[in-house]
């Protein structure tokens, strides 16, 4: 019997099965490698061009250590929020609109509990983070267990939380966190606040999990096709629920750092993060791994956006420029990436 099998096996290799496909791919590869390279690094190229351009136009203000510090030292909130959004987007939950409000909830809770209710600041921080995790869990239960539409749940939750933070803070910015608490975010490490490095570590860790570990691969597969994942033994429900909870956790931690950095929080501010978070996360799909949500691309996108906004402000534009830039860049960059990706396919 084994002989028969071997004989059959031998005939297999002579069989013609789609050799056209093989030659196709070779041809595609030689023709498409530039396109693929361009798709991966186009945005980074634009970033460099932008730096050169602003450098030429505003050499005295843009090419300074101060500008560098502003760009890299001021975006921690955005980094944490994009990481939170990535958690759910990667497992296929399209757009969690409550991340910004959840972040605001945590920031305002830690401040109010410490300043108004005289809690120990560390206990307040932990309580604030727990509240954010609970919000993530409620989102997850509604979306994953009960099957309610993600956008509806998170839009409602975001608005609800915004109202709660306004109520808790009595519609006013609250401040007065102890100065030593600020050190968790502002401690100077090599000229940049420590929270910058925490943000980078967070994104690197996230990228490591996604690229190298079974957990990351499960997340990608669930995002891509739930049924395929379920049939392969992934506990899909648990993973999706986990993603919402971790998203809440990251948003909560981000909120505490934001409050620490400024010594308090203005509840009206959190909503202004929503568009930049989406701009960064989607622009991230045009960087490094075209067509995929990826943490490192998102991290680069955050600083790309910050560079553009700062450069334009130094050129004399006022606060309107950030909306124009965030919105415009998002559309243009994603369009270019999509076109390049389609060509290189």
């Amino acid at each position, binding site marked *: *019997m*084994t002989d*028969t*099998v071997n004989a*059959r*096996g031998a*005939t*297999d*290799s002579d*069989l*013609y*099965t*789609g*050799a*056209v*496909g*093989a030659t*196709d*791919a*070779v*041809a*595609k590869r030689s*023709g*498409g490698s530039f*396109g693929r390279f361009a798709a991966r690094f186009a945005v980074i190229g634009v970033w460099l061009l932008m730096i050169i351009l602003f450098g030429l136009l505003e050499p005295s203000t843009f090419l300074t250590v101060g500008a560098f510090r502003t760009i890299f030292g001021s975006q921690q909130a955005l980094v944490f929020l994009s990481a939170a959004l990535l958690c759910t987007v990667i497992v296929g939950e399209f757009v969690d609109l409550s991340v910004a409000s959840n972040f605001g909830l945590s920031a305002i809770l830690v401040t109010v509990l410490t300043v108004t209710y005289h809690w120990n600041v560390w206990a307040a921080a932990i309580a604030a983070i727990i509240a954010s995790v609970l919000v993530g869990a409620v989102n997850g239960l509604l979306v994953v267990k009960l099957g309610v539409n993600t956008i509806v749940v998170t839009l409602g939750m975001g608005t609800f939380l915004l109202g709660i933070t306004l109520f808790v803070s009595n519609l006013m910015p609250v401040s007065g966190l102890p100065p030593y608490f600020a050190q968790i975010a502002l401690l100077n490490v090599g000229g940049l606040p420590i929270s910058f490095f925490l943000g980078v570590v967070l994104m690197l860790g996230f990228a490591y*999990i996604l690229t*190298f*570990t*079974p*957990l990351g*691969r*499960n997340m*990608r*597969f669930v995002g*891509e*096709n739930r*049924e*395929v*994942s*379920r*049939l*392969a*033994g*992934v*506990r899909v429900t648990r993973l999706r629920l986990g993603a919402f909870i971790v998203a809440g956790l990251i948003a909560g931690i981000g909120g505490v750092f934001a409050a620490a950095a400024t010594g308090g929080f203005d509840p009206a501010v959190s909503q202004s993060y929503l568009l930049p978070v989406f701009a960064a996360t989607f622009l991230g799909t045009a960087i490094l791994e075209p*067509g995929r949500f990826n943490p490192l691309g998102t991290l680069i996108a955050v600083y790309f956006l910050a560079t553009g906004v700062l450069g334009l402000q130094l050129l004399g534009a006022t606060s309107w420029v950030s909306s124009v830039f965030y919105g415009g860049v998002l559309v243009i960059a994603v369009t270019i990436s999509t076109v390049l990706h389609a*060509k*290189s*396919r």
Partner: protein
Amino acid sequence: MVRTDHVPQRLRIALGSGVILPESTEVRAATLAPPVPRLAVESLYMSFANNRVLRDVAIDVWPGEIHGLVGQNGSGKSTLAKVLTGLYTPDAGTRIAVDGGELQLPVRPQEARDRGVAVVHQSLGLFDHQSVLENMRVGRLRGSRFLRRIDWSREREAATAVFERLGRHVPLNAPVGTLREEDRATVAIARALQDAHAGTGLIIFDESTRSLGRRSLEHFFEILGEIVSTGTSVLLITHRLEEVVDAADRVTVLRDGRVVESGREMAGMNEADLTAMMLGRNLIDLEHRGAATIPANSTPVGVAGLTGLGVSEVSLEVSPGEVLGLTGLAGSGYDDVPYLLSGVTHADAGTLTLLGATISVPALSPASAMEAGIALVPEGREHAGLAMSLSLAENATFPQTTRSARSLFPIDRKRERRIVSEWIERLDVRPRERKASIRTFSGGNQQKVLLAKWLANAPSLLVLHEPTQAVDVGARHTLVAAIRKAAADGCAVIVAGSDENELALLCDRLLVFEEGSVRAELRGDLSPDTIVEAIYSNGSRSRLRGPRSEVHTEKKENN
């Protein structure tokens, strides 16, 4: 009913033009002169980046014929279909004409439809969340006179009429997503058929019959026969050579992106001839194979009292080394067994004896089934088999890591590369590009990756559902050989399928289901004919389409 375009040229010359001819019943049998083709494709070139996938392709579909289009996976068949439906833009210089009038390129679906071209896609193009009725009538809904309300009772009548013509009953209010593959295909076919007006139009079927059972298939071709006899044309793109041999009037064969046979008359051709044209050589006969070697003193895998979905109280045994087939009519429950046994669908009752342990089937989850050594290769590689935009390597090794206890430690890349290379080699997956996304592979190669994904998990019980659906002969050969090899290596294999040719190649033993339980068992020499006979105990396996000449010969030409 006189169609001068069908009159032999000699005759037309003899009679002069404009002469009214007597009605002829022999129109279809007559040697046809090239009339104005319903669909004419000329010098079609198609490139991706700087890579030509179609070269100088030409096809003429005449009025009132079924024109087969065959070719291996990767021969350019699907690309051609996508050009015809406007998904791809062909290179400049291509001409596509319907009834002599040239179409603008790329083909615009609306224009094509206005000219009478309907398409049934391989993926069927259905809206899963909408009802059957809505799917049927989308784009054709008409408002009432004043309020522009949709008159649902009228729509319902129209849809019912089409299903009646098809001889199939599909619940009109059910969301399409809840239907079985076969019913989904029926809905898509019905949607295309409803626009076919007598005497005009062209319907393109792109692999749309792949999930139809035998009876539906015969019925489908009966209706197709009726439709083309009115003068409507059909372009049939298919892997089932039997369909072309039995039903097509002429065939065009693609190989390596070129036309190797253009509009060849099918009369007198058989499947072997077609295969030879597609491959450029003859395929080694697979049908002669040794009997299964069941290792002595091996304990068979036993299923007892399996109940759930459409099955009740089913018991069966399969030994390591044996391939057991399950078949039956659509709805008989045979195709529920794979999903119940692998914990994918919840079973109500039943036990499974595997490797000396007795497992309760209702307690199985996909994860625990995998741990117990059960692997399921499901039907429908697009929605349940593979994650299309992830890479070959990621897909092929996915089950290896999903249950890893060390889920935050790095995946062993070397081991992964070794597994992928080994299986690419063993199943001859082409092109050999581990990092290419699975979407870029042809259907046959995707199916090989799907099989490799589960074989690599070294199961003790391998359960498959339609494992060679919609793949070409070459890939089918490889898949069958790989499944038999897995059995020879000591795996117990259960195959649920409706394709008698596939089952005849694969199985040592066959269980025929009826109304949720096993009605008959076939052993020994399984031929497609005996299988069909057993499935349709009261019927025979008739030709897909009646003979095209007047002589009534109810004879099978093949198998």
